[in-house]
């Protein structure tokens, strides 16, 4: 077994005992990336030099007997959506292709504080919009289990990086399922914490009221370790929750006694792949064998979740992305051709004797906005901006946006009621295993349905985790989702760990082409 195949919790011990140095570990990760990322495309940029510098410095400080952070010397890959003052942050968009933030996001700052080694920046759907990481302006990411398939999205780069063992840990963001869905499709652990548990400061916003940063790892214990390092109150984020972060790693191996699990009958209806259904049901049997009580709960408004999500998220996105207008930073379309076009358009109207129409041609400023946003954003981002602008416009606000907010409240109430009866809700993460690259590119509505089981947790702001629970006959991973009440990450992690301890799905690894 190679170094990189070992979970972070073990690596920590080896680093602490001196059996392994961070430089060795970091170099092993970098070597594996060099060998295999060509065929996966998990990373947009690998900061090899900086990573080795950090590793060296940690090793030196450890040798000097200094007190080190909880992630000392452990490589972490970061989704290219969190600002890092030492790295270009692109959000996989042409708009920010060369954007170097002047500050660190709180999550990146906390990783640095925890003495993590920042390995590089992972690929994603542009501005985190998508479910397959095919919407990246720079490259698609491929699923390490089958490179003809997607890793899911939008945090597909981070999920693929951990699944391919390029990094033991990675950071992703989850707006409608963007951590849990790719974790499920890549056979690893991914968690969306309670909204407000992790600071959003420096997270380039997609939909502010839904976005949440969370961990990817190969085990629940590692997920707990990474969450512990980045969670906590941040006065720079008004929506950050001012409550202490429990020590998840200390409680993770304590099973939940008398666990009551809820299942939602609708989650097992038409549309669910039979292999996924079977795997999830046998996972529930595992819980029963561990003494858990399983009962049905109702989430009657869950069926409106995707609809509400696709009103609220684009509305916020249309507003959050207004700042990319070419004025202050980032991409600006070439102005000489834009101005020439403008003059030509005006000329054409004048020549046709329509002076009034010529007057209505854009001002140079408006044309600059238009051409910049036209060339800077990809089709999915444009689609969502249009959806959002429409949903918020004066005549439609009540019919769409306000109604979606009402649905959102009802979904939250459903969960509140359900959690009066059960401790956790268990079910599938996705309706099927990883789909083929390009399979849904021309069918945005079908793509939107991949969030079916995950969006409700974002709308309600509750924590949820995805962990491996089976494999299809074709050898693709299947994920299990657990959802918990707000701020009960501890319960969620312990519940997930109970299953993990009783099974070995989390130990399965993809065989990479050309692997030694």
């Amino acid at each position: 077994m190679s170094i990189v195949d070992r979970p972070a919790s073990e690596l920590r011990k080896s680093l602490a005992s001196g059996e392994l140095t961070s430089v060795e570990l970091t170099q092993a990760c970098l070597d594996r990336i060099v060998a295999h990322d060509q065929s996966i495309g998990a990373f947009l940029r690998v900061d090899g030099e900086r990573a080795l510098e950090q590793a060296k410095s940690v090793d030196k400080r450890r040798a000097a007997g200094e007190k080190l952070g909880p992630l000392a010397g452990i490589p972490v890959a970061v989704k290219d959506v969190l600002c890092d003052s030492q790295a270009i942050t692109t959000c996989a968009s042409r708009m920010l292709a060369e954007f170097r933030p002047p500050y660190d996001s709180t999550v990146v700052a906390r990783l640095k504080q925890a003495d993590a080694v920042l390995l590089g920046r992972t690929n994603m759907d542009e501005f985190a919009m998508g479910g397959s990481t095919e919407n990246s302006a720079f490259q698609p990411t491929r699923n390490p289990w089958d490179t003809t398939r997607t890793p899911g999205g939008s945090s597909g780069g981070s999920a693929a990086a951990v699944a391919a063992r390029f990094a033991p840990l990675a950071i992703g963001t989850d707006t409608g399922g963007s951590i849990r869905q790719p974790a499920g499709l890549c056979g690893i652990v991914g968690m969306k914490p309670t909204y407000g548990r992790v600071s959003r400061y420096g997270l380039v916003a997609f939909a502010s009221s839904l976005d949440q940063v969370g961990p990817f790892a190969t085990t629940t214990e590692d997920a707990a370790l990474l969450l512990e390092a980045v969670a906590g109150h941040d006065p720079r984020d008004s929506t950050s929750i001012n409550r202490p972060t429990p020590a998840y790693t200390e409680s993770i191996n304590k099973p939940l006694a008398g666990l009551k699990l809820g299942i939602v009958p609708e989650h097992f209806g038409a549309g669910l792949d039979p292999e996924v259904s079977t795997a999830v049901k046998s996972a529930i049997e595992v819980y029963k064998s561990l003494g858990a009580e399983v009962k049905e709960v109702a989430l009657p408004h869950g069926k409106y979740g995707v609809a509400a999500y696709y009103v609220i998220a684009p509305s916020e996105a249309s507003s959050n992305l207004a700042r990319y207008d070419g004025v202050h930073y980032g991409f600006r379309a070439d102005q000489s051709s834009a101005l020439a076009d403008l003059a030509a358009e005006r000329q054409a109207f004048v020549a046709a004797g329509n002076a009034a129409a010529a007057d209505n041609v854009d001002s140079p400023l408006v044309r600059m906005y238009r051409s910049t946003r036209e060339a800077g954003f990809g089709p999915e981002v444009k689609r969502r901006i249009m959806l959002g602008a429409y949903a918020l416009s004066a005549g439609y606000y009540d019919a769409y946006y306000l109604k979606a907010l009402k649905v959102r409240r009802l979904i939250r109430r459903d969960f509140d009621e359900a959690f009066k009866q059960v401790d956790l809700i268990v079910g599938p993460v996705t309706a099927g295993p990883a789909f083929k690259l390009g399979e849904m590119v021309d069918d945005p509505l079908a793509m939107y349905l991949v969030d079916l089981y995950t969006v409700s947790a974002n709308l309600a702001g509750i924590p949820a985790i995805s962990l491996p629970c089976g494999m299809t006959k074709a050898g693709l991973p299947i994920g299990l989702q657990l959802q918990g009440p707000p701020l009960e990450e501890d319960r969620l992690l312990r519940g997930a760990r109970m299953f993990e301890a009783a099974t070995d799905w989390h130990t399965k690894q993809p065989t990479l082409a050309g692997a030694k």
Partner: protein
Amino acid sequence: MSDVPYTTVIGLEVHVQLATQSKLFCRCSTQFGAEPNTQTCPVCIGMPGSLPVMNRRAFELSLKTAVALNCNIPEFTKWDRKQYYYPDLPKGYQISQFDLPMSADGYLEISDPKDKFEPKRIGIIRAHLEEDAGKSVHDEAHGKADSEIDLNRTGTPLLEIVSQPDMRSSAEARAFLDELKLLLTYIAVSDCNMQEGSLRVDANVNLHLEKDGKKIATPIVEIKNMNSFRAVERALEYEAPRQYREWQETGRQLGEAPKQTRGWDDVAGVTRGQRSKEESSDYRYFPDPDLAPVITSAAEVEAVRESLGELPDDLRTRLTEGYNLSPYDADVLVNQGRAVIDYYLAVAGESGDPKLACNWVTQQVLRELKEREQAIDAFGISATKLAGLITAVNDGLLPSTRAPEAFQLMLAQGCDITAALAELKIERVDESALVELVKELLAANPKTVADIQGGKLQAAASLIGQAKKKNPNVDPNRVRELAIELATAGN
């Protein structure tokens, strides 16, 4: 068309920059006049990933203002995004308050001591907090028509105070603005410096006409870009007849044309229409998901109310009822601001003569301050010293005719009244000595005596000058009285 009488209907929107050290959603300084773009950070310039955090002080100042404007303060207020594209608006939206502002339904009393209009109450529809935008600087001097943007002002806290359309003349609008500015400076929530943009005014104007027994309203026009209260008055005076002429030409009524925006050209003295494309009709407001709503308890509002102190209107009442000043005098004093009032109250209290204290402060002191372009805090005669001067007059130590001389000396030397009296050799003239003096003068002026005896009492005045020459401390009135008394005594 024959003349139709009309009423001008005016509502004002006043943007007040709050006197905070830092911006509304970040810690950047709000100091005026810094080098462009030196007072910015990722938050106020809307860098990707940055998040706003409310400045508690800005909210407290707006709460204070809203309470002073008699507004209702709801328990719950939230933040909304007002979206439009403009180069000086870095996020593509402005954080403001839309449907649930932090205060509503207040009023401000206005009156005119010169009686141009009856005292009235102007309704306040709402006062809400918002962040300011940046500033575009169009540099056409170098022939390039380049535009530069200064984002120092971006994120500065503004309180937008929106009045009901309760004003009916430019005089009323002016009185509203004066009273509002006075109130804001009394409670120290803004420096109200119009040159530095701390106070900006937009006016909504239309006409109400009565024709053939039917009431008609003309379309509303919003006038922007007025940078002094005088400009507001002038713009309103220009706009009413202009709208009347337009109505005569087009006959258009409210609802038949969209709200028009016009700019005020202060040099040409006219309002000019702005292109309708420059107006935005759909701001796509929605609640800002980055900011938590603000909850204000009734107890907090009560605490603010108690901390407000005496407001201008309370002071006017105190001065007219408690100090027996005329409404005019009270108004003059109150309009000078809190520092002058405090000075006056000290002079009145220490001298025990509020009326005389008022005369001295409103006439001599204010005139000197104006000439010297000085604030009361820097004035050379303290309240205690001025009270000493007034007491000396009342005690007969200082003849009122010589009081201005003493005042000037005190101002020049910073001395008190005792020193001034000594320096000017002013002393009380003994009554018997005065009688002797007048007798002497009467003896030397038989013609005057004859005139007085003949009933020409005003002839006695001619002796005053001579008496003063002999002794500068004589009381002229007493000289005149004695001259008449003694001249007619023998008859």
